[in-house]
């Protein structure tokens, strides 16, 4: 991109956003458009293949990954509202396709992948204007966004731009919420213990919303909070940012 801001990007919705958080997906697209970027949303998006990859079913993961890579033929950035799926496509696809005939093609694709907040901060350098009421929020950092993808506080930097938003940190921000994809159903008791601790940690901050980059974490924490009738809500960071910066 030679330092200049791209005029056009691809958007990859991810299966969890597609099915459970479409508002977050729409918000991500709007944030990009607001920054002056044309958004292409290719049809035929399904899943990045991470569940099969993590369970050791690499043949199946590759079959699916190939169909997804094929949806993004032009040399444009691919932006995802998920640290986990972006991590899969950016970091684990090269691993998954190591030694395969299409390895070079997949590597070229992986090099174009960005998590949404990373793209908004590092590439587009967006400036947000807060139009919302004062609110206190807390932040859960998705393990894969931080550890696979190497996010260095980009989402917090965006939240920090909002004048009327107070960000109350979790005591154990970097501890896993217990989702882990199939982990949550293979080890339900351990997963529940982790989720309950995360929910309690979030409640203790006194915030009214828990934000995250990842649908998996949000589903998990939300389910746990709902089960204990908590007043605390969860929201995808894209949806939160879009709502705050939009005039009503």
């Amino acid at each position, binding site marked *: 991109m030679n330092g200049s801001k791209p005029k056009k990007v691809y958007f990859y919705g991810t299966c969890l956003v597609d099915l459970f958080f479409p508002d977050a997906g729409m918000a991500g697209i709007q944030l990009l458009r607001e920054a002056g970027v044309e958004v292409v949303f290719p049809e035929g998006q399904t899943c990045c293949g991470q569940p099969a990859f993590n369970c050791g079913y690499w043949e199946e993961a590759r079959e699916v990954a190939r169909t997804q890579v094929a949806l993004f033929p032009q040399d444009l950035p691919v932006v995802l509202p998920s640290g986990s799926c972006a991590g899969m496509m950016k970091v684990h696809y090269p691993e998954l396709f190591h030694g395969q005939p299409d390895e070079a093609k997949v590597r070229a694709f992986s090099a174009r992948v960005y998590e949404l907040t990373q793209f908004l901060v590092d590439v587009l350098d967006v400036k947000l204007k807060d139009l919302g009421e004062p609110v206190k929020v807390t932040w859960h950092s998705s393990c894969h966004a931080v550890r696979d993808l190497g996010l260095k506080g980009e989402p917090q930097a965006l939240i920090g731009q909002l004048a009327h938003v107070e960000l109350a940190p979790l005591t154990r921000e970097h501890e896993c919420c217990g989702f*882990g994809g199939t982990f949550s159903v293979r080890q339900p008791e351990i997963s529940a213990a982790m989720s309950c601790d995360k929910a309690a940690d979030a409640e203790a901050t006194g915030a009214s919303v828990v934000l995250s980059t990842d649908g998996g974490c949000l589903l998990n924490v939300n*389910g746990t909070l709902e089960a204990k009738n908590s007043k605390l809500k969860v929201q995808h960071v894209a949806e939160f940012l879009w709502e705050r910066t939009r005039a009503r």
Partner: protein
Amino acid sequence: MHAETEVHFRDAAAKALLDPQLRANFRRAMDGLITKRKAQFPDPRDLQDLRDLSTAIRSRSLLNLPELLEQFEANCTKNGIKVHWAETCEQANELILGIMQAKGAKTLVKGKSMVSEEMHLNAFLESKGIEALESDLGEYIIQLDGETPSHIIMPAIHKNKDQIARQFSQKIKDAKYTEDVDELTAMARKVLRQKFLDADAGLSGVNFAVAETGTLCLVENEGNGRMSTHVPPLHIAVMGLEKVVARLEDVAPLYAILTRSATGQAVSTYFNMITGPRGAGEKDGPQEVHLVILDNGRSRIYADPQLRATLRCIRCGACMNHCPVYTRVGGHAYEAVYPGPIGKILTPQMEGVGVRHDLIHGSSLCGACGEVCPVEIPIPEILVRLRREATHEDLGSTVAGKGTGRTATEDWAWRLWAGVTKRPVLYRIATWFATRFGKALPAGAPLIKNWTQSRTKPVPARRSLSERMRAEGGPHA
């Protein structure tokens, strides 16, 4: 077989989770260790430099492992240390028994050694009429209770001082009940002192084995390691064959990162370098030093370039301290000698990926272990690799039990998943049904049932993102 053990980990973990005292003990202890380690590495760049250096040393050592082991053996022999090789734990146990019997030794006082735990040495020796006493305070505490270590560095970390006070008052002769830590320590010390003086033999592990000098390095905090290796007339050391490093200068960075990562100490209270038996005119030290070098699957792990990284481990336990699973269930739930993240990759490689299928899946792959590991073992990647090995026989590897964790149900499920997910039309139909009828799925359905044990059922949105984008008719490709 794997189905049986899989139930074990889930059950053992679920049981542990119901024990509030155990959970509180672990949470408090691990939080303390995390804080102490952090204080030792105020500058992330310094930490990364030391990690890079340590990883390079361990990788280089492993790359030249066969040559280094030969050099190490030759130099040990030159120093008067008798070197023995054991392919299996049984062989190692027999070797130790033989060494002791040749000297007429009946009692053994032990410094801390995870390899001896791996060999189940104590039980073996007891079956042969030999008393083996643990002299590390934590090991001594759990031995009194007939338990195994729940952490590789802090074996009794699952107990608090009240529990230990109760136990000492019941199990140590003439002991009175006290919760004073100094008094409790003094009680154990009194017992152990006499044992050090009386023992026929002492046993230790090895933290670093230096090839160029034939030196055994031992890291410890209590002085019991020095007592075990210097007071009795016979010293037997045991080590895994991966412990060797090329040069003496390799030890300093590894030692620096080991103690900082493990307990947050800049140095340990004791650091012993053993180069042979008592020399002419020397006032202390054993008359004989033996070294047993154990394989137990390590050469098989070594043969695989990716899995070889497992052997870089310097046994600091930082991965356990930072693991959200370990912190909640404790070490015993793993039903393995090495618990926590490193145990999840080491144990299945030693015992077979099918037999310990449960451990490979007992991780959310959050990556905290890989992030903290001082020698950068990619534990999450190796876990995923082992999940592949467990379900595929045809990967051409030497992994023990490859393919034996495969089940028809799981196979079928992933094929179905790929079948739908690689066909956008089928996927679209599936999501259409999910958005319209997802709400109607019973909370008690398989898998959903596991999720809803502690959470409400996730409800799909009324219209998917793809549907909305299609309706928008915006700029699609």
